[in-house]
């Protein structure tokens, strides 16, 4: 593992290319308020981030990423369009992989631009590809937006779509729900019993007093939702199969695009997202990226942090034990969450310069 000096050296070389591309250099506090991060990522972030406490500000986290503070900064007072770059340490507990670094540099580039999202996607990817070109990495791409639109397009209850959308980043739970909604697995026994008793008008005796913040109305409303769900027809085998074909899709980009267009004949809801992908591939081509050799995996990015909602990409070394050397994607919805009503299309990514320094030896990159 390269020392911090070597990592910083590699980072500064990359940062210079980001600045040359027109990005303004920004800084972010190392101590971030925990509530924003917790609200965004949920309890999982507590297992990943170092939590500390400030006597006045309360719970704080050592910066686990730059995206959130950079988005917050832009949403507060950024001019449009904007390009930012940054360099600094991030901190991640490594409870499961003690061989991985808990403190490492990230060098990143973020674009906030309403004008032409496909062009911005291509700009970021091409810049990263150029910065990393000497390392002969494998690039993988995907598009969460296509998956989201496929789920929106299912012929089923909105509540089922909402549950699937919510769990798209938890593939196991997603499959469990999809199996239930498509009638492959039965509903839990206790739920069947509850619904049967409600239907028969003999609501099970609930002698327990009502306690807690979750109101009786909320309980009643969920029971109604369960009834509606039980009464609704299952997601058809055809739709389920189409969705599975989509999730399993993995090919070079041109072939993937052709298959997606074919799928869109049966799943018309994905057509706009697929055409955005087509526009992105054209923009990538104009940036000199060899799209004919670019891998596309429809499920790429499903196990990462849950804020990407469009194009996603990562760059990998031949050694499968190494984490991605770089990763990024589009996060339009995140700007809405952090923008308090305002939003702007945004895309960006980070490179881990220590890995770059390792892979390039002493050669400059």
């Amino acid at each position: 593992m390269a020392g911090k000096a070597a990592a910083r050296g590699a980072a500064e070389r990359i940062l210079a290319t980001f600045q040359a591309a027109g990005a303004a250099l920004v800084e972010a506090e190392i101590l971030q308020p925990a509530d924003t991060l917790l609200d965004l990522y949920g309890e999982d972030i507590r297992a990943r981030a170092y939590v500390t406490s400030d006597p006045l500000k309360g719970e704080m986290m050592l910066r686990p990423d730059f995206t959130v503070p950079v988005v917050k900064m832009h949403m507060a007072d950024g001019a449009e369009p904007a390009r930012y770059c940054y360099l600094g340490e991030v901190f991640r507990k490594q409870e499961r992989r003690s061989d991985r670094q808990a403190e490492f540099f990230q060098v990143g580039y973020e674009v906030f631009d309403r004008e032409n999202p496909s062009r911005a996607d291509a700009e970021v990817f091409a810049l990263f590809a150029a910065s990393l070109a000497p390392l002969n990495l494998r690039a993988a791409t995907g598009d969460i937006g296509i998956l989201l639109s496929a789920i929106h397009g299912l012929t089923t209850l909105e509540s089922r779509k909402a549950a699937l959308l919510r769990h798209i980043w938890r593939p196991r739970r997603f499959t469990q729900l999809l199996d239930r909604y498509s009638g492959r697995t039965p509903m839990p026994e206790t739920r069947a019993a509850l619904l049967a008793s409600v239907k028969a008008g003999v609501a099970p005796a609930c002698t327990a007093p009502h306690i807690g913040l979750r109101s009786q109305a909320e309980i009643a409303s969920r029971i109604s939702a369960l009834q509606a769900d039980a009464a609704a027809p299952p997601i058809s085998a055809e739709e389920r199969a189409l969705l599975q074909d989509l999730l399993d899709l993995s090919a070079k980009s041109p072939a993937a695009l052709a298959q997606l267009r074919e799928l869109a004949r049966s799943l018309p809801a994905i057509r706009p997202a697929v055409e955005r992908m087509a526009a992105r591939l054209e923009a990538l081509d104009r940036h000199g990226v060899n799209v004919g050799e670019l891998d596309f995996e429809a499920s790429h990015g499903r196990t990462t942090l849950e804020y990407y909602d469009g194009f996603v990409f990562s760059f990998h070394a031949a050694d499968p034990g190494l984490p991605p050397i770089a990763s990024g994607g589009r996060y339009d919805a995140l700007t809405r969450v952090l923008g308090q009503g305002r939003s702007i299309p945004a895309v960006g990514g980070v490179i881990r310069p220590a890995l770059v320094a390792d892979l390039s030896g002493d050669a400059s990159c």
Partner: protein
Amino acid sequence: MLKLGVPSKGRLMDRCFDWFAARGITLRLSGSDREYAGAVDGVEGLALVLLSAGEIPRELAAGRIHLGVTGSDVLREKLVHWQARVVDLAGLGFGHADLVVAVPACWRDVDTLDDLDAAAAAFRKAHGHRLRIATKYHRLTRDFLQGAGVADYQLVDSQGATEGTVKNLTAEAIADITSSGETLIANHLKILSDGLIHHSQARLYAARPADWSGGRKPLLADLCATLGLPPPAF
């Protein structure tokens, strides 16, 4: 000399002394019953160290004691990668308790983790914050809920009287230790049918990082033989 860490007070200490006594080793407090000093009869080379039960995992991990008795719940909560740091020598058959997820009994619509997840999503929408689960077992609870795909919850720390947090409106559900379930029932809570996080009991552990040189390994082998345990493989 092998250092054995044992809980310094209460039922856990008494049951622990009983367990060793039944196997021919007498552990006792020396001096007054308020002084935390111990003595061992019936076996050579064993020293008794009386510690707070909650500190025994840390002392094992630091290698400051060779052996320790503590609840498996506390040990797993406090030691990440516990298998790499201690060897589980034996369950002692007492201190049984289940770490469980419990919700208000009046939640007729919630019986499984699947229900809890759905209720959490609706709760967050209605109340603008995540469904709060009070616990002192943060790591075990988080790993369990993450594995089950439950989202939209947050853990809030509760170091005692956790069963009361729901009624006091500081949490919507809890993850806590129960043995008979009576406290849960008295506080109008019910256990989710698939909500068992960990079945705990008092266990005897050996510390991997402790100093096992200078004839201490044979000493441990002898001790295990006396206790009727298989020789430890480490």
